């Protein structure tokens, strides 16, 4: 795939391409351009500039390491140096060479990733170079880059500035340096900044850690420091690059691609440069392009015998200087061929004349030259079009409702026939727009003079009827170079591409985080009671495949004050600004979280719980609301997937919460009852004057619990497992005895430091009791423990 000038407006909806921007800014300095477009580039305030710079540098670092299949180890440091802030970002990537330094850090809008149909972080901003430029413009200091490659040897130290007149990076210093990392890259920038966006900065770093569980990130700022350890050694899968999909390109990109391709024909270009385009699809696009570029030719019904026009006579008359036999045979053959067709367009008449001429020429050994053929074709065409008014009537009548007044239909048809008859292009070749203009003109006239009305729908129907009847012309599609030079033609080509049904793009180019790792990421950063994650199957929007993932963490140490925390990601990059404009937030607000057991006052809006919601949209082209790429645009297909992903994860949360609530209720009930019953038993013993009572059995029965009881009778020890619940239970029961119980058939016996561990795994059906029996000699102490049965449901009386 060839490389193109990058494009800023990709997916953003503005349609302004970098090329267009660059054209506009050639006359002004790069600094001025930057100044004017700051907010678009994410540098609109000193506070945000720092976040953007960190974001660009960290994204760069993660991409560099992952591309080299290295587990990322990223170090970020922000230092307040009085006048300026110093930002240092280090990675353990493969390092870069001197040649790469200006390309990576210096060239504004450099980078192959803007147009690559592959999910990656770089889409998110315009690159680290903008940060370099911002630093240079605000502090006047060069960017300091240290890099060490895996080939060994010393690290290199560079100082880099961007020439603001030429937009060219320059390396001012290049020297050997020592650096403790075995390989990697370090960039140091000094810039005007402040820490007012501390929260966003922290969020960005923390969320990056959540969504990149394979990365180790260390972060220092003047007031705080964090370390995020990695939770997995698994690198995200490498993404396949795919060629662009015909439905997903913009005009600017298309023009660039046309410029750069090696193909000569449009068909070859389409098949070579786009995904999902084969010969057949390419032909479909070309036909659609022909219709738009050349227009179609309206086909008319040839005259029938009883009608006045006679193609045979017309052709005979038109042919001069040929033998009468040949002329007669030719005219008859043309007339026959014309009559055989139900309808003919001009190009078809020409084809009939040409092929007949060749046949007759062979038979009579006379040549029918170009002039003769043209005249014959013109004569035949004139005969074919003679009864155009009748054809028009039939079409208009068919396309309008039966209630239309016949005179009105007649009036419109006659006017249309006249329009075609007097058309400059005698071949009756029209584009759809021209056709509609014909219909409009005729209909307007009919309305004015015939007192008829033709509404928009009727006009559109009539236009459709004629367009259906018209034939795609056989003309050669313009070559790639011709289209490349003709913006309008390129626009028509793009239209044709979009109008053609084409298979959805393949989805191998996406790398979702995966359910396991979304959960692992949340688990790593949030100490919650419950985690759930869902990854949807890939879907397509426009020409771009996308995958939505959602994660939920609930309870535990998560803050319980106010709304749930919402983590938004696009291609693994946290979005920390413009929350209110983001489709993800809209979707969260619209879901009725009460259905899932969360607290949502009013049944709408952000729920009010100790929970974290994570949403990740991965795509080859995430649609953002603006160039600063802080919020996902409201695209219905994507919103629907976000909702489904959230609901999928929320369903798990719901069953967890239900279970938790029922256990909580049980625990509360148990606490109350377990408190009351002993009091009651004590009082009963007092009133009746009998022995004190043990209430555990009754309690276990009340709680539908599993009761484990031990009775010792001489050397025989019995553990009874009563299941008072209405479902069966299976648990693992371990008895620790201080005397040797000998071998046992049902239990496994292990001796450790003078204690014997007997282990059973009984299954006890509802309402049943299992008895576990063993023998010990002499005095012994016992201790029983039960696993696999919730503590709330277990009563041990042993």
């Amino acid at each position, binding site marked *: 795939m060839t490389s193109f000038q990058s494009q800023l407006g990709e997916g953003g909806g503005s349609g302004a391409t970098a090329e267009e921007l660059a054209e506009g800014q050639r006359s002004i300095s790069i600094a001025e351009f930057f100044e004017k477009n700051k907010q678009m580039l994410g540098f609109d305030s000193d506070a945000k500039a720092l976040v953007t710079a960190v974001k660009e540098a960290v994204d760069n670092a993660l991409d560099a390491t992952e591309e080299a299949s290295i587990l990322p180890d990223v170090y970020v440091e922000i230092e307040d140096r009085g006048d300026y802030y110093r930002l240092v970002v280090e990675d353990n990537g493969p390092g870069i060479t001197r040649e790469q330094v200006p390309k990576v850090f210096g060239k504004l809008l450099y980078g192959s990733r803007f147009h690559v149909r592959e999910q990656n972080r770089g889409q998110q901003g315009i690159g680290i170079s903008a940060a370099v430029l911002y630093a240079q413009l605000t502090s006047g200091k060069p960017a300091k880059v240290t890099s060490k490659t895996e080939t060994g040897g010393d690290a290199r130290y560079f100082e880099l500035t961007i020439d603001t007149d030429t937009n060219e990076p320059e390396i001012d210093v290049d020297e050997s340096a020592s650096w403790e990392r075995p390989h990697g890259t370090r960039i140091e920038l000094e810039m005007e900044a402040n820490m007012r966006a501390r929260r966003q900065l922290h969020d960005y770093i923390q969320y990056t850690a959540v969504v990149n569980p394979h990365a180790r990130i260390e972060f220092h700022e003047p007031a705080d420091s964090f370390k995020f350890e990695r939770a997995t050694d698994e690198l995200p899968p490498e993404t396949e690059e795919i060629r662009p999909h015909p439905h997903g390109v913009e005009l600017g990109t298309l023009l660039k691609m046309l410029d750069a391709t090696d193909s000569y024909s449009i068909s070859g270009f389409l098949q070579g440069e786009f995904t999902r385009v084969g010969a057949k699809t390419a032909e479909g696009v070309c036909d659609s392009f022909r219709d738009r570029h050349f227009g179609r030719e309206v086909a008319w019904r040839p005259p029938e015998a009883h009608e006045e026009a006679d193609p045979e006579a017309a052709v005979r008359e038109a042919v001069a200087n040929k033998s009468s036999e040949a002329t007669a045979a030719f005219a008859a053959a043309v007339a026959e061929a014309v009559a055989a067709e139900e309808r003919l367009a001009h190009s078809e008449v020409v084809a009939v004349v040409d092929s007949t001429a060749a046949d007759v020429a062979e038979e009579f050994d006379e040549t029918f030259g170009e002039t003769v053929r043209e005249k014959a074709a013109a004569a035949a065409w004139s005969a074919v079009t003679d009864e155009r008014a009748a054809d028009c009537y039939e079409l208009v009548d068919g396309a309008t409702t039966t209630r239309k007044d016949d005179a009105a239909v007649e009036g419109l048809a006659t006017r249309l026939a006249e329009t075609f008859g007097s058309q400059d292009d005698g071949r009756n070749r029209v584009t759809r727009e021209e056709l509609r203009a014909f219909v409009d003109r005729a209909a307007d006239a009919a309305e004015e003079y015939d007192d008829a009305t033709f509404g928009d729908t009727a006009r559109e129907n009539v236009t459709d009827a004629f367009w259906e009847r018209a034939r795609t012309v056989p003309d050669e599609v313009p070559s790639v170079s011709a289209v490349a030079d003709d913006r309008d033609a390129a626009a028509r080509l793009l239209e044709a591409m979009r109008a053609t049904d084409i298979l959805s793009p393949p989805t191998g180019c996406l790398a979702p985080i995966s359910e396991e790792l979304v959960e692992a990421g949340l688990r790593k950063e949030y100490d919650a009671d419950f985690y759930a994650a869902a990854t949807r199957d890939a879907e397509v929007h426009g020409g771009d495949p996308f995958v939505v993932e959602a994660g939920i963490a609930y309870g535990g140490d998560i803050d319980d004050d106010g709304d749930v925390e919402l983590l938004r990601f696009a291609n693994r990059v946290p979005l920390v600004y413009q929350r209110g404009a983001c489709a993800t937030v809209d979707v969260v607000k619209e879901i009725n979280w009460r259905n899932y057991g969360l607290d949502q006052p009013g049944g709408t809006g952000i729920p009010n719980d100790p929970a974290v919601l994570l949403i990740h949209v991965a795509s080859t082209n995430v649609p953002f609301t603006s160039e600063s790429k802080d919020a996902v645009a409201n695209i219905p297909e994507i919103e629907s997937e976000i909702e489904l992903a959230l609901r999928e994860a929320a369903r798990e949360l719901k069953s967890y919460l239900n279970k938790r609530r029922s256990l909580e209720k049980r625990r509360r009930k148990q606490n109350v009852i377990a408190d009351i*019953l002993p*009091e009651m038993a004590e009082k009963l*013993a007092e009133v009746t004057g*009998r022995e004190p009572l043990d209430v555990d059995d009754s309690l276990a*029965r009340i709680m539908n619990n599993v009761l484990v009881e031990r009775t010792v009778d001489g050397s025989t020890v019995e553990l009874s497992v009563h299941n008072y619940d209405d479902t069966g239970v299976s648990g693992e029961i371990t008895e620790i005895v201080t005397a040797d119980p000998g071998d046992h058939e049902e239990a496994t016996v292990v001796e450790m430091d003078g204690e014997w561990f007997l282990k059973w795994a009984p299954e006890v059906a509802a309402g049943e009791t299992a008895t576990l029996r063993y023998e010990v000699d002499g005095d012994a102490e016992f201790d029983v423990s039960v696993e696999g049965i919730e503590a709330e449901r277990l009563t041990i009386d042993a």
Partner: protein
Amino acid sequence: MSTDRDTDADLNEEEAREQLIDLAAQFYDQFADGDVPRMEIPTRTKSNIVFDEEENVWVYGDRHSTRSANSVNGARKLLKATYTIEFLAKQLEAGRSSTLRELYYLSESWDEERAQFNDQDESNQLVEDLEIVAEVTREDFHMRPEESGATVMGPLYLREQTRRGEREIHCQKDVGEGGYQIPNNPDTIEFLEDDADFVLCVETGGMRDRLVENGFDEEYNVIVVHLKGQPARATRRLTKRLHDELGLPVVVFTDGDPWSYRIYGSVAYGSIKSAHLSEYLATPEAEFVGIRPQDIVDYDLPTDPLADSDVNALESELDDPRFQDDFWTEQIELQLDIGKKAEQQALASRGLDFVTDTYLPERLEEMDVL
């Protein structure tokens, strides 16, 4: 259970105490067996009362509800029951008595907070539960209601066993205009002599005073029992004894509204809340004098329109098994039809003596009491 057996009104203190302790022992045994402690009580609603053909009174049917320790509420109820049993047993042992309200306040002093009552309804209900389950009447627990009993005026000579010794009283000659006050446990009364032809139970104080002022009791040899609204158990018990022991016919004179019909119902058939004691409290032979809806029409009495709650109460009485006879069906339907109700005092619209000179003699003659 008490509903199946004649409650022994003369249970002595020791026996009552033993019955209570037996109940505690039942709970004890349930614990000892690893069972869930519980007590079963007949459902006390109008859908669960049945007519006892033998005794001619309404008693509880077969439907039971269970207070069981397997719910938090049930466990609390049983804990309270246990504490109440202890209290009652000690009270009987010491030969003391207390009021229902005193029990409620007394629970505040129990060290176990969860055994304390939340309101008096709860303690009243629990005492009723214990009456049923322990088969001992409240009076035998030495529990009495707050309100003193109603009064009697008429040609009746009796002996009352008071805490301060025996008293012999004539209910016309030895009492003031207020009449003789019925003690909480009327079984301490012995009837010595009477010169009465029948017993007239009157709902309102105003009407009772009118009858006494007009000398109705003397003129017609009638024992006038003041019901004071919904009659206390003691009043009902005494009425029953006057009927059973002295063979006097009993008639009931109330306002003409649905709530008053219920007063008659509880005198004649037993109340829903104390259906377990119907055999002991109800006087099935008691007849209704009025005010009947028919009287409202016949005497053209001043009336109030029926409120929605009155209509609901009347409709509910149409479903009440105690009112399923021709008389009540006809009267209630008539009242719903005319949409009016009248008080006993409405008779004064015909003059102060109308009730004693005309209305009652006419009605009582109709009923063959005179």
